[in-house]
């Protein structure tokens, strides 16, 4: 069978806002723009809205806020709360403590803030509605973290641009992803909101970390953890299985991971 090198039609695009960030979808294939496809997109947004209701630290009535105040027990919460806390624990372990879902509270003790785990996890879960669409490929992004699925073996991979943290109107790198996830952590848009949980200080040496990994859950965690590790970001990232990435340092220099000059025997 000969496949004609036809120019692929542009993907259908959708965008809505939830959890304080824009959610963008590019979708192509059988259900890109039919009733099933539109229903799946609605299911994605509903899933993210549910995640926000459970995990938002900005909402006093979220489960995570009530748990943090000791008003409810873990067993009272929806099961995904324990799931996310365990992910945070695994991430803390993997990063030697640089990543944590716990923050020292002003009045003593530890406050609960699983935001660094929730976003990637919630997008990964929300994408299930899209994965259920047969013969349909998609790239789903939430606030600059994204995951792709490609079933069509003849299709080109999704072309992912990586933003330049020092010049947000420019791309610093590109990476093709057929099926997988890309997450970026840094301070370009929100100021210094990430800290090394071991010291409480904002990392100084690193400006941005991008991670390409099989799942967005772990791409997001690894990007956040690598960023928190500061000068050790690239070294640590190179130890993560199935993962590539790009570290942008504060002085504008970059280190691809694995390093392109690494010798192979």
């Amino acid at each position, binding site marked *: 069978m000969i496949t004609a090198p036809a120019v692929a039609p*542009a993907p259908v695009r959708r*965008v809505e806002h939830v959890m*304080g*960030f*824009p959610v*963008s979808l*590019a979708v192509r294939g059988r259900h890109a723009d039919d009733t099933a496809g539109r229903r799946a997109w609605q299911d994605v947004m509903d899933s993210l809205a549910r995640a926000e209701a459970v995990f938002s630290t900005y909402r006093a009535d979220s489960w995570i806020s009530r748990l943090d105040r000791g008003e409810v027990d*873990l*067993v009272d919460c929806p*099961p*995904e709360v*324990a*799931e996310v*806390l*365990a*992910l945070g*624990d*695994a991430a803390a*372990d*993997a990063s030697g403590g640089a990543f944590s879902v716990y923050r020292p509270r002003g009045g003593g003790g530890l406050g609960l803030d699983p935001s660094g785990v929730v976003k990637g*996890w919630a997008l*990964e879960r929300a994408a*299930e*509605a899209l*994965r259920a669409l*047969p013969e349909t490929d998609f*790239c789903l992004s939430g*606030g*600059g*973290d994204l995951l792709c699925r490609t*079933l069509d073996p003849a299709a080109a991979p*999704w*072309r992912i*641009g*990586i*933003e330049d943290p020092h010049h947000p*109107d*420019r*791309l610093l*790198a*590109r*990476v*093709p992803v057929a*099926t*997988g996830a890309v*997450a970026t952590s*840094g*301070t*370009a*848009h*929100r100021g210094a909101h990430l800290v090394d949980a071991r010291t409480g200080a904002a990392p100084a040496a690193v400006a941005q970390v991008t991670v390409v*990994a*099989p*799942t967005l859950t772990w791409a997001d965690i690894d990007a956040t953890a690598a960023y928190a590790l500061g000068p050790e970001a690239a070294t640590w990232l190179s130890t993560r*299985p*199935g993962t*590539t990435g*790009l570290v942008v340092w504060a002085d504008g220099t970059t280190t*691809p991971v*694995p390093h392109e000059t690494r010798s192979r025997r």
Partner: protein
Amino acid sequence: MSTPDPLAENRHRRRLVVTGMSTLTALVLLFGYHTSTDSTASAGTVAVGAAVAGTSSGSTGSTGSTTGTTATGDAADTRWGPVQVKITHSGSTITAVDVVEYPTGNPRDQEINAQAIPELVSETLSAQSADVDMVSGATVTSRGYLQSLQSALDQAGL
């Protein structure tokens, strides 16, 4: 197929100190670790989010080295490997949550999942010259979205 990586054995025991929480049940968690051979997951069978609370068939008993009583959930055999959680509680207060076992992948997974390395470029993107499908950047907020590259891409496609 889901034999845990022995090199990761030291990661299997992890501790999460949970203050101010209490529960009396063990929790079995499932979390996703997709591989690039993910097409079989398109039927929506992925177990993400399918945590099971209140597993009563797990073992319960006291341990000598930690305060309180522990309860260990049954290992849930997911397609990414076994997942098992243990909690320690004192009375009605949880003192620790340990993920006893969780999938770490294996060398074959890592091979399958090999990803491209980002290729450095330097170019200004506009809606007219977009040669990417999506942009990854440090947390884009709804407030900053209108100025973002992603916004340009979305508008170009709408």
